[in-house]
């Protein structure tokens, strides 16, 4: 029982602390830093526990006990936990100075981060469709609130409402898909049990296919994949910048963790040869179709994301579309359906988290409270704020996948994984869309360094907590680019 409790502790602790922080918030009155530091310490505690449980993944999930076998332990879920926690901490630091610059510091934002981390780690630890669903809902509802956090601003409220409406729409399909799979497998919700059942081929394929399709629909919405991506640019642009950074990185990683869980269970590759042959044929047909489906979604997502980003004049919106495109790259790992692909997803999510949050922090700093977010607002940044421009340049290079920054090894791994699994055409599409993406990433650098305008950036920006986020992100983007093998080997060993 206690071992069970310890092994699942990141989830339990984050949930408990999320509830406690409500009380902290309620009783701390006007004191905003108390909530801030409580959230910070909570996140660090969750992170430490995740790191501590990371190597426990070899142990079987105990039946009964505290979680009744519904929570998976350690291993890759712990890595995801750490990712969420880091994203949370980075956002926490950045959001404080961001909200102060916007003159709307509300301490609820800090508790929301904790809630979101709780939901996301529930997703990563899910061993059961219901837990997965609960996690997705905790995360999504938190995100709806975060998107509408600036409640006096129309853009923010509009973003929240749009996100909520479409999100609820997508959630319906998600739960419907789960129900159909439950039926198709003869009453199973457990991922391991579903996986075992799939290997026997003893399932109802019509319902399974529809159910899987609906699951993919629901999760594609969460990762913002084509054609369920349209909310993303609007919401990401309207939401507070730090919330956008958080949603588009940690949220995406959580949805990908869910996709890994689902596809790992439902698209097995090692069939038992002793089975009746027509079941195997039907089974392989299903897995091939499913992979092709995800591959097509992935290809269209990156093309649409990158092509749309080319014409954007607003940096935040451009980054939002680039986030859509990145969902496409990350789906390549799902398509490859192998350990290489999955570890590529984990690695790239990690690198992407640092560069995307970092880029949004820069956007947030420059935005201040008069909403300067257009490309032309970045002209002359290299002269007035050389460090800021250089850091933004690093993030842009990394997002474009140029070595020696973190984006390169991530993309490389995903591309190789796709080729290994026979989807060479997908890699070609990915390379083409990467080339398209260089156009707008480098475009921003051109604006920062080589363009003149009548209203150049004149302000100098000083030190704040957001600088801490920037420094950490920059260091990790570079470290992940130069020493990628450490993380890759760690992750590969945990699957």
């Amino acid at each position: 029982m206690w071992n069970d409790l310890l092994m699942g502790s990141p989830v339990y602790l984050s949930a408990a602390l999320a509830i406690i922080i409500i009380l902290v918030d309620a009783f701390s009155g006007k004191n905003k830093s108390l909530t801030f530091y409580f959230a910070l310490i909570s996140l660090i505690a969750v992170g430490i526990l995740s790191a501590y449980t990371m190597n426990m993944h070899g142990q079987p999930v105990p039946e009964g006990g505290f979680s009744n076998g519904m929570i998976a332990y350690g291993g890759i879920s712990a890595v995801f936990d750490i990712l969420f926690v880091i994203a949370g901490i980075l956002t926490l630091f950045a959001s404080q100075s961001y909200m102060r610059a916007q003159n709307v510091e509300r301490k609820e934002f800090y508790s929301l981060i904790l809630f979101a981390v709780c939901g996301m780690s529930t997703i990563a630890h899910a061993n059961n469709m219901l837990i997965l669903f609960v996690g997705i809902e905790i995360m999504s509802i938190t995100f709806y609130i975060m998107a509408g956090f600036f409640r006096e601003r129309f853009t923010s409220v509009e973003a929240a409402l749009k996100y909520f409406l479409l999100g609820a729409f997508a959630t319906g399909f998600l739960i419907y898909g789960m129900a159909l799979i439950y039926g198709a497998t003869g009453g199973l919700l457990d991922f391991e049990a579903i996986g075992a059942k799939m290997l026997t081929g003893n399932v109802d394929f019509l319902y399974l296919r529809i159910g899987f399709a609906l699951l993919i629909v629901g999760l594609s919405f969460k990762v913002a994949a084509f054609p369920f991506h349209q909310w993303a640019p609007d919401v990401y642009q309207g939401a507070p910048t730090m919330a956008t950074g958080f949603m588009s990185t940690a949220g995406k990683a959580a949805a990908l963790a869910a996709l890994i869980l689902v596809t790992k269970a439902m698209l097995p590759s090692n069939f038992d040869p002793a089975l009746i042959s027509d079941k195997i044929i039907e089974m392989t047909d299903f897995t091939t179709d499913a992979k092709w489906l995800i591959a097509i979604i992935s290809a269209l997502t990156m093309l649409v994301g990158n092509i749309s980003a080319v014409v954007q004049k607003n940096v935040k919106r451009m980054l939002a579309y680039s986030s859509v495109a990145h969902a496409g790259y990350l789906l390549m790992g799902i398509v490859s359906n192998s350990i290489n692909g999955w570890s590529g997803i984990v690695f790239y999510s990690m690198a992407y988290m640092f560069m995307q949050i970092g880029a949004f922090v820069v956007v947030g700093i420059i935005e201040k409270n008069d909403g300067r977010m257009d490309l032309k607002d970045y002209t002359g940044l290299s002269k007035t704020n050389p460090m800021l421009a250089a850091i933004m340049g690093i993030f842009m290079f990394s997002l474009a996948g140029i070595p020696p920054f973190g984006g390169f090894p991530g993309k490389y791994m995903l591309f190789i994984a796709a080729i290994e699994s026979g989807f060479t055409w997908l890699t070609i599409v990915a390379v083409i869309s990467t080339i398209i993406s260089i156009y707008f990433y480098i475009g921003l650098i051109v604006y920062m360094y080589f363009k003149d305008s009548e209203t150049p950036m004149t302000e100098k920006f000083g030190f704040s907590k957001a600088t801490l986020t920037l420094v950490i992100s920059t260091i990790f983007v570079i470290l992940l680019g130069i020493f990628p093998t450490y993380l890759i080997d760690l992750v590969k060993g945990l699957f």
Partner: protein
Amino acid sequence: MLVDYLPVFIMIALGAIVGVAFLFGSEYLGARRSTKVKQSTYESGMIPRGTARNRFTIKFYMVAVSFLIFDIEVVFMYPWAVQLREIGFTAFWAMLVFIVILFVGYFYELKKGGFEWD
């Protein structure tokens, strides 16, 4: 297996075709003269006036939140109470946790001034 559903699909297809055909047919064939009255929003014969973005008083939301806290509590507690003897102490602790969480929400509302009505 899917062949069994063929009549249904034919039915759906026919329905869709007829529906779309009428839609476009009226668009194509019908005469259109737009007047000011026709363009205006239909409000059951009333003349539309003011903005639709009316703000409601915060009290409505407060009532809704309090209702959620107490109502959901009750909805879960009835079946729990009926079955308590059979499901034993696990359920007791589970319900306790649930009530504590709701209680946290109640306290939050209280401290944030949710019950101060004036």
